[in-house]
């Protein structure tokens, strides 16, 4: 028998949810894929001057001041207006889905957490914050402390797990 942690009801072995109170009875192992970093991995600093110019956004996003450029797949995600957005990936059945879902870009394999980081755009000021992610967030190769805001410059590269995002800011 399994004893429900919430209501103490005795369920049969193999039960996945408590039939009395609905509590989940199985262990969730959907953790973020662990990424192995090689110890002496070279940090490739991408200088701001090498950053591409701000691309021209599509019609409905003309007022975008910032954009995320995925270095591996060369996709661009435009951010409309001033706001704080969560970045991560979605899994089936997930209650809270991030504003920017990187699942289509192999986020899981790259070790991106479900809620990995936030990106806040306020005028020309852009800041990033790691949300205590499993594999961490790096800014131009340097690991960010969790839950602290860091200012982002045009052309800076944020690495979520192993997924590289270059932040482009319109001057």
């Amino acid at each position, binding site marked *: *028998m399994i004893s429900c942690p919430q*209501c103490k009801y005795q*369920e*049969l*072995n*193999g*039960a*996945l*949810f*408590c*039939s*009395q*109170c*609905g509590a*989940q009875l*199985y*262990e*969730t*192992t*959907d953790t973020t894929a662990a990424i192995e970093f090689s110890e002496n991995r070279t940090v490739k600093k991408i200088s701001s001057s090498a950053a591409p110019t701000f691309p021209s956004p599509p019609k409905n996003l003309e007022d975008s001041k910032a954009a995320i450029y995925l270095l591996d797949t060369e996709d661009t995600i435009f951010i409309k207006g001033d706001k704080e957005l969560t970045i991560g990936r979605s*899994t*089936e*059945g997930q*209650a*809270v889905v991030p504003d920017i879902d990187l699942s289509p870009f192999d986020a899981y394999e790259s070790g991106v957490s479900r809620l990995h980081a936030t990106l806040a755009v306020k005028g020309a000021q852009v800041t990033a914050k790691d949300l205590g992610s499993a594999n961490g967030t790096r800014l131009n190769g340097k690991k960010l402390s969790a839950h602290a805001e860091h200012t982002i410059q045009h052309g800076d590269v944020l690495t979520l797990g192993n997924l590289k995002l270059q932040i482009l800011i319109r001057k």
Partner: protein
Amino acid sequence: MSSMSDETNLYERLGISEYASQDEILRAYRKAARRLHPDVNVEAGATEHFINIKEAYEVLIDPHKRAAYDQNIPQTQKPAQPVRIDIQYSQTVIQHSTEPQLIYAHIEMEILPDPTLSDEPPPPLNVALVLDTSTSMKGARLDIVKATAIELIRQLRPQDTVSIIAFNDKAKIAIPSGSHANSRKAEGRIHALHARGGTEIFKGLEAGFKEVQRNYRPSYTNHIILITDGHTYGDEKDCQDLADAAAQKGIGLSSLGIGGRWNDVLLDDLATRTGGNCLYVHKPKDIRDLLTKKLNRLQQAYAEQMSLDFRCGSGINLNYAFKLAPESGALSLESPVKLGSLPKGNHLQVLLELIVDPMPIEVKEALLIDGDFLFEIPSKSASYQIPIMLCRSVDANPPPETPSPKITKALSKLTLYRIQEKAREEISKGELAKASTRLKYIATHLLAQGEPELAQVVLTEAAQIEERQDLSEEGKKRIKYGTRALLPAGNNQVSES
């Protein structure tokens, strides 16, 4: 293939079909191994035969290798696969235990298009609309039902037939079964319907059943749709018998219940018996949308009269069965389980909860369910019988594992629906405090799952339960059909035609 020693198809070597499940592959292999293993069979050629079978098994049991193999099967060797069945379990291995235990199985069936056939149109629809015209329907309810009925008749295809039955304490055939596309006369008769009298559902269904039978062909999509807002008294048993008789002929029965004062338990039961479904109409203006969708679904039916004929293995009991898609609803626990029709491109998804009796140590493999999926494809004039077998190996110390997300996702919602059922049972036994606690649990989960509106309905009902000694009639339906609507509908979308 690595070895050229035996050119025959790998499936043939194991004596299984190309849509065999992993379980069937495993069983076929074990059976052959017992017979041909070099340790037990010293006959000439047996070892080589065994090696061939082992080779086939090793490819087919691995989903990646199997997919690669399937791609390269010469077309001439490849029989048309009518369906693809995917079965997932809450645990891949059952543990030896002196206690009973639960195991869940998620069965998904997809009917594969037949490339040798051109796109046949879906079968004609033969439907009876059974409309409640009792006094309570007066006003917006009947007005919208009438307007929608007229609109739907206009949308019918020339091959479709329809009848309209108006009932209160008597049944009246407003429009006899036939093709009424663009019929002014038929529209006039619908306009003339007005509300008065009581609600005797059996009388309406009986007339509807008769009308459907007048243009009945086994190859059509035959269906009765009941629209009501009232309780029927004393004729429940007759309604159930009629549903069983309809199911026998492959006629489905679906219902739309409007507002709070109708018997959801009865109408859900009629749907379960026939493979139809039962929908709750919260606001009269939703009638049009729900009825239109229902008819579109029926018009696009590809497979018809699906059912599961099964028996449980020894020591196994089917404890709960629920259809997740294409339309959600509780299923019968008795064979045959009526599963309704399947629109083209949709998948059938069923979740089973099985109780496994104590498994002694000498048992190495448990047969859970053995049976057949039966269905018709009217556009091909063909009936199908697809064997299905659910079995698991049994082990003393299976490795820990995370259950399939398909199962956990469906169960996280279905559990709330079932707790709601429990709360209603408790209320009927007068255990109000228990029921109230239960509702609060549901509300907490709803909030966590991002359903604040429904959570509020549940909390309001929980707060008033002592005073009212019951849930409100409206609340019962909103909680029941609200939690049911949380279930993932999978890929199933019917295009609006």
